[in-house]
């Protein structure tokens, strides 16, 4: 084993030699420099493996004397880990800086090495004064690094840094001196056990030391200086400060915070939380990417402080190593590689004037992938380490303190919104930006992040996680890898991937989940056929579609809470990416992301609460024993995702602005995710029906009101995709309401309705996408009379609107029949009335849809429009055949559903031959189909006798008050079709939810702006803030300590 001290010595030594050697032997100097870093990394990793495999921590005594006479350096697993991080970050950073260093000779490399060496010292040292020395070293060297940037802001911010860290050093030194006076030693380990520490003097001295470290850790509000430093520094230097240096100081904090009594830990936790939330709140207002990253770094520090102090307050000094390594390790690795990677991205793409335009990142596909990955990693999405850290952290905190969970999730929500906003901007670049080389270094960082994570899974750190849940992820990558192939081969491979995934997932699932997975995969494959039509313009689309289908499907195959949460997050991320690929979809994708994430975090809180309350991992057991609060949170999460009334405002834009070919997957498949979620909750949760209040009834009301308002809003849309989006909202509302019924009939109806919704909404979106691609518009009043041009599409839309409206004989009626029966059986009569009203209002938009698009007057510009391509027609007519089949033989479909539901509720409906008997009435789908055919054929035959006398005329051959129509546009009644309805009851359809959420957004924005203004940019102000912060902190600490 190499003596760890050597790393320090080599780094320092090489630093001096380098400066001397560089003028004479360039290659040798550089080799030495990188050699030192590689050496450090190798040594650290060697020690790390040693410790992981059971090695014992050692203490290194460089002077040969034990404390209090000599200095003691600690060397254990944590130290080895952090120093690996430091060297890795240093190595990657120095590679990123190589070109700059080579072109402009400066003290940069030396200072860089010095910073790293200082950081290593900070990590290892367990002596207060020694720590002070290293603090000074790193502080000087970073200030020097800032100055080497040779631009004004860098130097200024370096000065500010000196100002504040100088202040901190003074505090630290005073504290050290006093502690030495009281305890007679400088070694931390000895001070900690010293009885003198308990007195007021000991407390004050410890406080000063810790306050100094907190200032160095950039705790709000004493962090304005750090923001300026991280903003104005060269991005790689900023990365160094933000990751390597900060992590080292964090470790110092980790070492010395036990100096203070445990009951004061809550103050640190709160300070950390405030830093976390305020940083991300202020980050919302940033339009400079590097400054946003600076805020994000600061926020991360706050989170670290929170985590460290909180775990310590719960577990005392015996924090389980697994928890510590997953949470802290996960976050630190993410912080290093993802945040560092993003800083390097900035460095990579900065032009000669120092301007950074994030759209350049997305100019190549690889660049886009890298920034997407980094941002998702930073946002804590699977499969990246921070995801596991987040899950573990929230689960642990939820066990004791729910408010902290909410504060953390609030901050995290701000963060993910902010990150996604930037991602949207980055991905815009593909279309209108000169091509720039992708940032390879950040790519490596991303790759190693993923590697860490997968490695952790394989190491068995998550026993409640089955690797098959990551199938969507591999499917996405596989589909992405074949993106260069010709379109049809690519689609065939994608369908194959779906098939393979089905092969892997379906047998492992059970019950409703199994059916769900199979159906989602099947319909996804069917819809993929439509993509055969034309070559793909967007390379991302197909992989993302495959990913979306798979992530939605895998929800049915999960067994544990963690698996469920993982698939949920994957689905949210992938579908958001799918939406953001739309032409003008940036804003709507952000809205989708915001609401999805808010829902996801509610879900996370609920799941974490349930898991910690039950101590179980299995989803069924977790739900079964879940406290009602967690059930409420979980179902709220699902309701957010379902876009129920109140949080529906993302629905229309997300559907309308995503690419026409992507919408079917989002509308038909992704919308089913919350449904399966709700079903699972109510399936397993024994107590979900008896809460502190009738939560179930509330969800039922939300469901029917969503159905009603969805239909009402849909009636007033001009854009066909928005109309369909609101229609989906309405349909989901029915399903939610009947799920909430929690009865046999209700659940059979819910599954039946959900299945149908997949069928006809998929059919509608495929057909309408075909129409839009032919007519080049999605505004309905610009279409018209297309029945002559696209008769097959017309039939498809006709079928689906009959199915949606519930008019017999198509199977929609069965759903409606069971729904009303279920409502009436359960005594939810008013809800049934509202549902009926909603289904009446649905006629309005359905008629409008088919009339304004297909009937009425054809426009001159559409005179040569062709029928949709065969690749669309085939899936369309397969779906129609399925709809007709179900209409004739509903029993084939209903019997399996009823068997499934029978496992949860006692049956209240039964079959008598083809007749379905409920407690209220009966429904014979087969007979209805026959009778309808009969009564339809009778008049048809009568009329066919007269067909010879009929003259087929053209559109303008109409009675038009004896005039001839002026133009098709003025004759086609389409725009504002339900003006009278709006006048009659439109007042209840005013966009109140939109106004409310806009208000929330504005308030948040204003608050963020207010927080942002703390960082004035004035060094003196920062110094005052530090003093005030320390004083206030002291005041609070005294209150708790004494």
């Amino acid at each position, binding site marked *: 084993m190499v003596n760890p001290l050597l790393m320090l010595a080599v780094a320092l030594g090489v630093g001096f030699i380098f400066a001397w050697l560089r003028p004479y032997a360039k290659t040798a100097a550089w080799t030495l420099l990188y050699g030192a870093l590689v050496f450090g990394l190798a040594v650290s990793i060697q020690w790390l493996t040693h410790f992981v495999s059971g090695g014992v921590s050692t203490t290194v005594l460089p002077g040969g004397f034990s404390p209090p006479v000599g200095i003691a350096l600690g060397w254990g697993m944590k130290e080895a880990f952090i120093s690996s991080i430091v060297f890795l970050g240093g190595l990657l950073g120095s590679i990123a800086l190589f070109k700059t260093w080579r072109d402009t000779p400066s003290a940069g490399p030396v200072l860089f090495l010095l910073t790293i060496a200082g950081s290593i010292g900070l990590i290892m040292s367990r002596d207060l004064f020694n720590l002070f020395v290293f603090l000074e070293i790193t502080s000087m060297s970073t200030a020097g690094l800032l100055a080497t940037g040779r631009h004004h802001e860098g130097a200024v911010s370096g000065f500010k840094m000196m100002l504040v860290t100088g202040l901190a050093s003074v505090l630290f030194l005073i504290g050290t001196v006093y502690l030495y006076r009281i305890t007679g030693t400088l070694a931390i380990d000895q001070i900690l056990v010293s009885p003198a520490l308990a007195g007021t003097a000991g407390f004050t001295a410890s406080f000063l030391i810790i306050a100094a470290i907190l200032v160095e850790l950039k705790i709000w509000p004493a962090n304005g200086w750090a923001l300026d430093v991280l903003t104005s520094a060269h991005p790689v230097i900023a990365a160094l400060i933000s990751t390597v240096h900060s992590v080292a100081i964090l470790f110092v904090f980790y070492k010395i915070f036990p100096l203070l009594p445990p009951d004061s830990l809550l103050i640190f936790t709160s300070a950390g939380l405030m830093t976390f939330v305020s940083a991300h709140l202020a980050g919302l207002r940033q339009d400079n990417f590097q400054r946003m990253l600076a805020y994000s770094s600061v926020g991360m520090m706050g989170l670290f402080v929170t985590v460290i102090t909180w775990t310590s307050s719960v577990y005392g000094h015996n924090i389980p190593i697994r928890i510590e390594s997953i949470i802290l390790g996960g976050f630190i690795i993410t912080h290093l590689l993802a945040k560092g990677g993003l800083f390097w991205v900035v460095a990579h793409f900065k032009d000669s004037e120092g301007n950074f335009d994030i759209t350049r990142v997305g100019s190549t596909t690889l660049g886009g992938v890298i920034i997407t990955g980094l941002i998702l990693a930073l946002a804590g999405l699977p499969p990246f380490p921070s995801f596991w850290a987040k899950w573990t952290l929230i689960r642990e905190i939820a066990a004791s303190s729910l408010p902290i969970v909410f504060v953390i999730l609030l901050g995290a929500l701000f963060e993910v919104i902010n990150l996604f906003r930037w991602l949207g901007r980055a991905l815009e670049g593909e279309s209108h930006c000169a091509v720039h080389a992708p940032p390879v270094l950040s790519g490596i960082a991303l790759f190693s992040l993923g590697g860490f994570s997968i490695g952790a899974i394989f190491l068995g750190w998550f026993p409640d996680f089955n690797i098959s849940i990551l199938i969507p992820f591999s499917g996405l990558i596989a589909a992405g890898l074949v993106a260069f192939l010709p379109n049809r081969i690519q689609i065939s491979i994608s369908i194959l991937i779906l098939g393979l995934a089905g092969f892997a997932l379906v047998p492992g699932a059970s019950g409703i989940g199994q059916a769900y997975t199979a159906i989602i995969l099947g319909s996804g494959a069917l819809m993929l056929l439509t993509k055969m039509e034309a070559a793909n313009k967007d390379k991302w689309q197909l992989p993302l579609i495959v990913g979306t289908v798979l992530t939605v499907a895998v929800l049915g195959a999960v067994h544990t809470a963690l698996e469920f949460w993982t698939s949920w997050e994957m689905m949210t991320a992938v579908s958001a990416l799918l939406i953001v690929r739309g032409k003008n979809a940036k804003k709507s994708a952000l809205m989708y992301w915001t609401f999805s994430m808010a829902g996801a975090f509610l879900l996370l809180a609920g799941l974490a609460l349930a898991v910690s309350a039950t101590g179980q991992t299995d989803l069924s057991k977790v739900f079964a024993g879940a406290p009602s609060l967690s059930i409420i949170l979980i179902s709220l999460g699902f309701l957010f995702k379902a876009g129920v009334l109140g949080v529906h405002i993302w629905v229309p834009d997300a559907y309308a602005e995503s690419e026409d070919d992507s919408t079917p997957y989002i509308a038909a498949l992704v919308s089913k995710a919350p449904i399966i979620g709700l079903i699972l909750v109510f399936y397993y949760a024994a107590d979900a029906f008896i809460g502190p209040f009738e939560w179930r009834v509330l969800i039922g009301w939300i469901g029917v009101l969503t159905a009603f308002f969805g239909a009402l809003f849909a009636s007033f849309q001009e854009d066909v995709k928005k109309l369909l989006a609101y229609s989906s909202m309405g349909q989901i509302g029915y399903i939610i309401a009947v799920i909430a019924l929690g009865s046999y009939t209700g659940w059979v109806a819910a599954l039946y309705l959900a299945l149908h919704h997949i069928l006809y909404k998929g059919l509608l979106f495929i057909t309408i996408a075909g129409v839009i691609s032919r007519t080049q518009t999605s505004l309905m009043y610009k279409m018209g009379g297309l029945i002559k041009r696209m008769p097959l599409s017309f039939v498809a839309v006709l079928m689906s609107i009959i199915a949606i409206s519930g008019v017999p004989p198509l199977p929609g009626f069965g759903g409606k029949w069971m729904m009303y029966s279920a409502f009436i059986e359960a005594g939810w009569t008013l809800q049934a009335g509202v549902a009926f009203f909603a289904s009446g209002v649905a006629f309005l938009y359905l008629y409008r849809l088919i009339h304004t698009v297909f009937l009425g007057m054809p426009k001159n510009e559409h005179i040569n429009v062709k029928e949709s391509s065969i690749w669309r027609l085939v899936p369309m007519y397969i779906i129609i055949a399925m709809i007709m089949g179900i209409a004739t033989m509903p029993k084939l479909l209903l019997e399996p559903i009823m068997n499934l539901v029978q496992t949860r509720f006692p049956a209240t409906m039964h079959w008598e031959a083809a007749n379905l008997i409920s407690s209220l009435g009966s429904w014979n789908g087969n007979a209805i189909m026959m009778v309808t055919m009969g009564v339809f054929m009778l008049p048809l035959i009568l009329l066919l006798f007269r067909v010879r*006398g009929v003259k087929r005329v053209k559109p*303008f*051959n109409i*009675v038009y008050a*004896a005039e*001839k129509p002026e133009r098709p546009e003025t004759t086609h009644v389409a725009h504002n079709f339900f003006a009278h309805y709006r006048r009659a009851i439109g007042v209840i359809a005013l966009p109140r939810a939109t106004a409310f959420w806009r208000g929330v957004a504005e308030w948040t924005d204003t608050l963020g702006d207010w927080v942002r203004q703390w960082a004035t940019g004035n060094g003196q102000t920062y110094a005052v803030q530090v003093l005030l912060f320390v004083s206030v902190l002291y005041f609070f600490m005294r209150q708790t300590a004494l």
Partner: protein
Amino acid sequence: MKSTENKIIHPLENAGVPEDQRHLYCDASPRPYPALNKYVERFLNWARANSLWILGYGTGCGAIELRPLLTSRFDISQYGMNPRPTPRQSSVFIIGGYLSVKTLKRVIRSYEQMQNPKFVVGLGSCTVNGGMYWDSYNTVNRLDYYLPVDVYVAGCMPRPEAIIAGFEKLKSTIMAGQAEGANEYAERFDWYKSNQKKIIKDWDMPDYNW
């Protein structure tokens, strides 16, 4: 009548319609429809005569005399007659008084949109010979040059009683199977059309308004 059924129906030119709108109009010319079997036709004629639906197109001052017909004083509905607001469903076209060139254009359009069999009743002297406006620069003198008229009711204006008498006359004509104006219009289509086009200079409609 049999021979006309097989007549080749040549597509109309529709020269008056702007080129980019021609595809919006049907360009077939009308054809006469033969009567059915004598006894069937007798029954159908009875029904036609007893269910006369009126297209009231108030072309002139005569239209004012139609109101008392519809209301309680004379109540035309007792004869099975009814006003219809659309030419598609009407069988009697009442030309209520003088016709200017401008209104004639609309009258022709409406007449052609009615379905065979259809009947025209000319009301007032103006439809007969132009009446007191006969020498005006825009009053049509003889309606029967433009549309096949079944019954004229003379007078300026004719009283409702006279109009009812005219309808009785029309009924008996229909029952006798002699009210074949629609077929006559189709057979002598070119003659009617040339008369119409002679006075309607800016013919901006299709040649036959289906």
